[in-house]
């Protein structure tokens, strides 16, 4: 029986198929010609029926085989097993099969053209009826052709798996909580940027690379060395703080002493930012490095992962501590004094260079923490993670009021929430632009930023 022969040949799996093709692929064109003429021959010999139709539980297309395949499912998208499917070829050859447990059926055919695929209603369970019992599909050889049936109704025991509907307000809530999360992580980086600007007047474009550095170091300690994530975070903060200290000691301090203008300094930060990005790429390549490893499900009122809740809590606590320290501690007051009037602060006995160095240490440490948390909640870090956040951080700082720590927090939260909620109304790839539009609007109305003059703290 040619059908059986075809069936056993066509439905061999994996490796043997590959060998089969490999065995003659050098003769592909010849094979096509031979196959075509063979088909013609078969058709000529048996005038009524033509190409064999074989059924099975899978199908591999090749030069002489087309796969006509599909599934039968009820209106709950559950598979319907045992349904009888009959196919009729252009030359009126027929083949039939019952659907497998997963509702699937496969026919391997050797003739291209329009096929009728018919579902036998009597083979269906009670309560299930076909929408269209017969489909007409065009089959090509060396290709797969889907011909599935989505039925009306469902039998007893078929339960719905449909995801619960998400109302507009629920979705708004979800995006709002994502916005809060993003805002809090941005704030950790933004406050540092703002403090550096406040005390030195420098717009540090390399601040974003401190975020990336934090993420990569977290991968090194938490994944590569397998340390506890809390321990890793503490080490990362220490190391990124150290990088801030070294930067100020080796680059920014000496440049300040030489009296370099702010514009030149800013260009140096841009150069440093690019150099660091490519150093990251040199060491780590372009891949995404995971920091967390386990799959966590979204949960709770904000519909975010447990790690995301912890990250928010950590951000809030750290931000509160920084705020309190700025307001009440001796060093905090000194910092604000330097930010207000550097000459006056120096004259009144404050060691300005020491304050600035501490500001660098704290700022880079905070950015490092921000990188750890960002990588944790977003599935990893790659060499441009920080660069992607840089504009948002700058927007947040400017929106809140340049040089004010609390302003940076407020600005970050606004940017984070607006960017995420905006995706409900505008194209996804414009979401970060919305933050910048808000920035322009607010600055037109209030040039000093939201908390600009009123509460100038750092």
């Amino acid at each position, binding site marked *: 029986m040619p059908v059986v022969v075809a069936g056993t040949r066509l439905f061999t799996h994996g490796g043997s198929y590959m060998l089969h093709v490999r065995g003659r692929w050098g003769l592909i064109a010849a094979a096509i010609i031979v196959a075509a003429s063979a088909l013609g021959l078969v058709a000529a010999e048996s005038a009524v029926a033509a190409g064999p139709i074989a059924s099975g539980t899978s199908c591999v297309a090749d030069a002489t085989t087309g796969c006509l395949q599909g599934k039968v499912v009820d209106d709950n998208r559950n598979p319907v097993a045992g349904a009888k499917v009959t196919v009729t070829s252009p030359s009126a050859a027929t083949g039939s099969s019952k659907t497998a447990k997963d509702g699937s059926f496969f026919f391997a055919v050797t003739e291209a053209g329009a096929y009728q695929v018919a579902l036998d209603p009597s083979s269906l369970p009670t309560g299930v009826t076909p929408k269209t019992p017969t489909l007409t599909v065009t089959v090509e050889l060396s290709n797969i052709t889907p011909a599935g049936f989505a039925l009306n109704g469902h039998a007893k025991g078929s339960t719905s798996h449909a995801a619960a509907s998400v109302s507009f307000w629920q979705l708004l809530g979800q995006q709002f909580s994502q916005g809060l999360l993003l805002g809090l992580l941005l704030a950790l980086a933004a406050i540092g940027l703002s403090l550096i600007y406040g005390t030195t007047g420098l717009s540090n474009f390399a601040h974003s690379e401190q975020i990336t550095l934090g993420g990569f170091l977290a991968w090194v300690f938490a994944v590569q060395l397998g340390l506890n994530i809390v321990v890793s975070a503490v080490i990362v903060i220490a190391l990124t703080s150290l990088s801030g200290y070294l930067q100020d000691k080796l680059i920014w301090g000496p440049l300040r002493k030489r009296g370099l203008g702010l514009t030149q300094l800013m260009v140096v930060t841009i150069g440093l930012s690019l150099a660091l990005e490519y150093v990251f790429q040199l060491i780590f*390549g372009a891949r995404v490095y995971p920091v967390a490893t386990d799959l966590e499900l979204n949960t709770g009122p904000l519909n975010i992962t447990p790690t995301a809740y912890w990250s928010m809590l950590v951000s809030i606590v750290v931000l509160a501590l920084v705020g309190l320290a700025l307001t009440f501690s001796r060093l905090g007051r000194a910092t604000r004094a330097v930010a207000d009037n550097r000459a006056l602060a120096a004259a009144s006995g404050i060691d300005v260079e020491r304050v600035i160095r501490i500001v660098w240490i704290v700022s880079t440490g905070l950015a490092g923490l921000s990188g750890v948390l960002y990588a944790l909640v977003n599935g*990893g870090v790659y060499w441009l993670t920080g660069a992607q956040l840089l504009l948002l951080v700058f927007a947040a700082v400017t929106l809140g009021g340049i040089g004010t720590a609390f302003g940076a927090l407020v600005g970050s939260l606004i940017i984070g929430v607006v960017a995420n909620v905006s995706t409900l109304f505008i194209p996804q790839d414009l979401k970060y632009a919305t933050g910048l539009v808000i920035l322009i609007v607010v600055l037109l109305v209030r040039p000093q930023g939201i908390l600009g003059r009123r509460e100038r703290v750092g």
Partner: protein
Amino acid sequence: MKFSPTRAAAGLAAAAAAAALILAGCATSPSASTTTSAAAAGAALPAVAACGSGDDSSSTFALGSYLPLTGSLSFLAPPAVAGVGAALSDINAAGGVNGKKACIISQDSSDGDHKAIGDSNIKSLMQSKPSAIVGPESSSVTHNILPVTQPTGTIVFSPAATDDALAGEAHFFRNVAPNASEGDALAKQILTDVPAAKVGILVFNDAYGINLRDTLASTLKAGGGSVVYGAAGQEFPSTETSFATIVNNVLAAKPDVIAIIAFDQTSQILPAIGSAGFAGKNLYFVDGNLSDYSKTAGVPDLTGSKGTQQGVDADKTVKAKLNDWYKANDGKGKDLGGIYNYGPESYDAVITLALAADLAKKDDSASIEPFILPVTGTTGGTVCKSYADCLKLIKGGKTDIWYQGPSSIGPLNAQHNPSTAYVGIYEGDGKNTAAKFLTGVKATISK
């Protein structure tokens, strides 16, 4: 696989040169070839030498290699580097091209987001007057460099650029199926698994992504399916690093299945999808992200997920050859890690160009170009399957040869696309989306 100091080191010269270029804004500086280290081990042939200062297309078959050694596509570089390198080694082992050993000029193409690197490197490559260029892998980068290469008539032969819009570009050839074929195959597989599927598409805003999305969507609609998310205007930026928001949006549209059209962003999309509780078996992947996610964070069980990949699923001997070559040369002891994407295509691109040069009896692009289509079989001829065999035929006086290599494409057509090419469909297992080969779909490319 995730962390590769050796690969980082391999990309050192190019990346350092690129960084220096960007920072200093200086003129091009020759970047050292990454294929000069010939530590032959085992049966693998040593890499061919980099072209010297006098070796250009006027006297030597000087192949320009322009592959993404850095950037977001750099994970696809090793198999292509191996394909190009192994082909050149085979060519020189058989006596070289036109009686002289071939040489390689390697430059980093980087990716579409780092146009500055690719632009300066292509100019540097062009100054070396290559016989032809194999690469780039990215469609975006191909669009960027063609205005530079076309005026001089330099052949660009890509083993991996799949954007439909590249068809018919002057002096541009490829031996990989364009996106339309892949989107079509993916849509048919989705409709096989879920009749009248409601599909959510997570697609990034890039020529490759949008092109593939469009063909996927049109075949889905024609087959009774629908796209509930990911239509025009619902792409995410290619530099996005936070995906919970877009995952919320796509799930709110209640899709039956989600197709992810992206590159390595997928490592960050999968945890977000997993956290939202969407089943991994209802995910579909494309050639840009069909890979092993076992070292990625928070990935759901991907058993039963499916994906498509242009190119043939190379047989074991071809895979072993590429792997051994890479390990002995550019890989410096590290193997390809099971990734062979576009390796056979890269190999065939080089062999095809070399044979065309043999037929032309010259090594420059203008002489080579007319012989490329005949070598791929457009006019029939005597079939040969390796460079050595084909070269014997040419030396024996044959002018009509038909090279049939491991990529098993049909002859190139008038648009310089393969007339037929394979798209493989794979099924996932555990966290590896390309664990099991289901079927190869031979796509016929009409134009």
